[in-house]
């Protein structure tokens, strides 16, 4: 024990030199694969689309794991914010459409993307009277209301959503004059033309990596500590000066913004914004809410890398199986009522949830940690 506890100016200590070369090499290799993925897939655009869908899942799941895992709040409202994000993007960047009865502000797409995320954050913030007061499962069920509300609003506000029959096309994304569309001639990387889908891949990749780093940074900083404190003991968090209701509302707001970004990407991925016809099947349905929850659970609650792994399983598997079905004729023998890629994936992730809770509450993240045998809980 030292004798003094009086604050003394501390020289800024040099960054910890505990470099883990194996880890760095692994990350570098992964980055190389991701960057060259469009080259690897070449003309097989279906693989690229599958990859894009996983990246969308990464953005959404990272946001949800902050809320569910770090802040200890349950939410089933993710699809609602996907919908708000997608529609907001289309409204902010879009035009009146062929029939002329759509609302479209014609803003630059980048502005519209940022605006859509901001709108989702604000809507999430407006939910603060609920998200800041309720705990855990109560919030989970309360948040389900947003999915039903979204379904209703999407169906009734045709001028915004484009309606359930035709929907509306999201405007082509564009950054400083560079369009994420097919062009002639197109730039090439190692002989592979970088067209619309390749460009979108890079857009999604940059956003997914950005989301990952932002979330990881937040988890390691003041805001993450406050969330965990509220999750584990509200009284203690309060005594340390954390405003509990605000911390909860803030986590919900942040999570909504991530979901909003995933919504914008979903619109670009589908090349369509179209509200669902019912609450149980569709792009913004309860099934999707459960899918996102599954990602977060399978990955390990609160773990950012885990959320990524969960997104690969939940969003990647059906895509991969669908590719298998079209390319190699898997499930060919199955008619109506048979096994389908979506069904098999649902079985896999349903079972994965059960197994994780039964045998490995830390999820894939814990398994990963054990494999690389690193001490401590960095989350």
């Amino acid at each position: 024990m030292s004798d003094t506890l009086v604050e003394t100016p501390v020289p800024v200590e040099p960054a910890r030199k505990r470099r883990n070369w194996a880890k760095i090499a692994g990350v570098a290799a992964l980055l190389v694969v991701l960057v060259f993925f469009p080259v690897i897939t070449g003309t097989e655009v279906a693989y690229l689309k599958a990859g894009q869908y996983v990246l969308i899942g990464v953005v959404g799941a990272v946001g949800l794991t902050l809320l569910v895992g770090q802040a200890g709040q349950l939410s089933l409202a993710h699809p609602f914010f996907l919908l708000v994000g997608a529609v907001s993007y289309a409204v902010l960047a879009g035009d009146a459409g062929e029939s002329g009865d759509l609302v479209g502000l014609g803003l630059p797409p980048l502005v519209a993307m940022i605006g859509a995320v901001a709108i989702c954050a604000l809507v999430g913030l407006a939910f603060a009277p609920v998200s800041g007061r309720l705990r855990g499962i109560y919030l989970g069920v309360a948040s389900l209301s947003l999915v039903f509300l979204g379904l209703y609003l999407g169906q009734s506000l045709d001028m915004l959503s484009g309606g359930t029959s035709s929907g509306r096309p999201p405007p082509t994304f564009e950054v400083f004059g560079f369009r994420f569309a097919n062009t002639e001639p197109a730039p090439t990387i190692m002989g592979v033309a970088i067209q619309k889908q390749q460009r979108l891949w890079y857009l999604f990749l940059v956003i997914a990596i950005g989301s990952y780093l932002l979330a990881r940074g937040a988890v390691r900083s003041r805001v993450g500590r406050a969330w965990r404190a509220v999750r584990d003991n509200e009284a203690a968090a309060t005594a340390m000066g954390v405003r509990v209701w605000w911390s909860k509302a803030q986590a919900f707001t942040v999570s909504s913004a991530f979901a909003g970004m995933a919504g914008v990407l979903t619109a670009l991925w589908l090349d369509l914004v179209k509200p669902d016809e019912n609450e149980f099947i569709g792009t913004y349905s309860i099934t999707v809410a459960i899918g996102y929850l599954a990602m977060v659970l399978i990955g390990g609650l609160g773990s950012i890398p885990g959320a990524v792994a969960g997104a690969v399983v939940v969003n990647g598997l059906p895509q991969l199986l669908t590719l298998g079905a079209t390319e190699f004729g898997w499930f060919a023998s199955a008619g109506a009522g048979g096994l389908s890629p979506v069904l098999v994936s649902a079985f896999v992730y349903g079972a994965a949830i059960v197994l994780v809770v039964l045998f490995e509450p830390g999820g894939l993240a814990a398994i990963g940690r054990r494999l690389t045998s690193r001490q401590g809980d960095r989350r």
Partner: protein
Amino acid sequence: MNTFLQLVLNGLGKGAVYALLALGFVIIFKATEVVNFAHGSLVLIGGYFVYATKDALGWAGAAALGIVSAAVAALLIERLLITNARNADVNSLALLTIGVDVIVTEEIVRRLGADIPFVGDPYDALPLQFAGLTVFRTQLVALIVGIVLITAFFLAFRFSTWGVAMRAQAENKEAAALMGIRSSRVTATAWLLAGALAGVAVLFMATQDFSGAGLGRGTHAIALIAFPAAILGGLDSTVGAVVGGLIVGLTEALSAQYISFEFSKSAVFLVMLVILVIWPSGLFGTRELSRV
């Protein structure tokens, strides 16, 4: 006025069904503190057995089998999964039931294939006219069955050995154990009972009268409405579940008529939100889900 009375009667009938489901949630929650997200799949299991055996056993036999199978399914979830996850906290167990729900729902929907059958043969689609009112017979039968079952439940909860044990356990698990109450039997009975109630509920849910939607994902989605019913009443209150069920049934019926059919489900959830903002533990809930 007649329209209004009709709506109230139909709303109460629906509410009775929601009350049966919500009561199941609450019984399970009181016994194990687990929120059972797999309740909708118990409904589907019951309905599926009715559908599959109706031709062979006749409706009554099939209905009995459906109720039993939903009860057994609930018991299996409890015995095989919940009791084996001793290390998991109650919130993780709630999430586990989501996994179960995904698997069961997908499997039953796959088995049903293109069929979306109705399972309420004796009373479905036979509207009843009296005193100038037109009432769906399904809702009327549901209301009567609901009243009988809920009364029976409260009597049992109050006076039977199980009821006393169950209430003692919900109050204080350790003390109940010291008094020789076998926690595992109480818990198993709770799940069995909740499953049976879900099995009864589906007999009214997958009908022409109730929703127009046959057995399938739609039924599962209707079962979700029982969530607001249980939550707004207070997850640990049996009385709250019944009141919540009726509020939800009436809200749905009235908003469908006076606002729009599409809005009716949102209306239910909005009513729940308002109640939760004012009473974060629901109308009759006595404690918050997680403690400081």
